[in-house]
C-alpha cells in the first residue's frame, strides 16, 4: 500500500481535523471545530496567518480569534467556508455534524 495514493482523501484529513478539534476542546476552546476547519484550510495551503487572513478578507486579529476557537462555526467568514468546501481533502458536512 502506498500512503500517498489515497491517504489525503477527504475522510482521512477530516479524521485529522476531528483529532485536532478534540485536542483544542481539551485545551478549553469553545468552538474547536470552527478553529480546526480554519487551521486545516490554512495549513493545507501552507499559508502564514497574515496572507491567509488577507486572502479571506478577515482581520488578522479576527483570524487569531477563530483559530483559538472563540468564534462559532455559524459565524465563520464565508470565504473560509468556501475554501474549505472547495478542498476535496476536507469533508465540511461531516465536521459540521459534530457541532450538534
Amino acid at each position, binding site marked *: *500500500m502506498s*500512503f*500517498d495514493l*489515497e*491517504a*489525503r482523501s477527504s475522510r*482521512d*484529513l477530516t*479524521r*485529522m481535523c476531528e*483529532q*485536532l478539534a478534540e*485536542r*483544542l476542546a481539551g485545551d478549553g476552546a469553545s468552538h474547536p471545530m470552527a478553529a480546526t476547519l480554519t*487551521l*486545516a484550510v*490554512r*495549513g*493545507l495551503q*501552507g*499559508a*502564514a*496567518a497574515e496572507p491567509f487572513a488577507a486572502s479571506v478578507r478577515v482581520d488578522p486579529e479576527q483570524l487569531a480569534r477563530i*483559530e483559538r476557537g472563540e468564534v462559532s462555526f455559524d459565524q465563520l467568514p464565508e470565504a473560509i467556508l468556501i475554501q474549505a468546501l472547495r478542498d476535496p*481533502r476536507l469533508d465540511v458536512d461531516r465536521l459540521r455534524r459534530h457541532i450538534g
Partner: protein
Amino acid sequence: MVVMAEGDHSAVFTLVDEFGDQIAAMVRSQLASYGRRDLLRDRDEMVGLVHTAAFEILDRAGSWDPAGAPPWVWAGHAIRAAVAQQIGHPLADIDVDRLVERQALMPFSRSGPDRADLDDHRDLDLDRLAERHPQVRLLLDALSVTASERDQVVVGQFLIQKAFGDPSPSHTVAAECGLSPANVRQIVSRLRRKLQAMAAHDARYRGLGRSGWLAA
C-alpha cells in the same frame, strides 16, 4: 516545522500533506519490525498512525532544531512509543514519571539520570512489562541473579532497541550508557551465553530457551 515550533497548529496539516510519505515510511518500518504486517495492509490503521506521529511531532515542535534531523527522525523515540501504545504492542507501557522515580535505571549515565536522559527511555518500563509478561519476568529474574545492575540495564536497553528496529542497538545503548559499542556487545554476548546456560541446565529458567534473542 518552524511554524509549528512557534505554536501554529495549522502546520500539522502542512506536515502531513508534505511529508506524510516520509512519516508513513517510518511507521511502516516500525510495524514491520514488530511483525505487524496485518496493520501494514490496513489503510485506516496506517493513516491513523501517521496522524498520531504528526501530533507527536506537533507536541514537541518547540524544541526541534531546524539545523538537525528531520522532525520525524528527531521525534523518533516519541513516535515509536506512541505507535506502540496505539497498536497495543507489549513494549508500550509508557510511564515517564515512573521511570523518573526509578532513577536507578540510569545510575551510570554520563550526565546522570536527569529528565533528558529519561525522556529517551520513555518507551517502556521493563518492570511493568514483567508484571504482564512471564517471559520478560523470567528474563529479568535471570539477569538479576547473573548480572550487575549496570549490565542488566545494558541488556534491557539493547533488547528494547532491537525490538524497535534500531539497526545499531549497541551504538545507541553505548551512547546512552557512556560505554563503547564494543563494551556493549561484549556485555550482551557474555550475558547471552550465561542465560543460554541457565536455560539449558536450570529447570526454573528453561522457558528462556523460547526467547528469540537466546535462541538466535
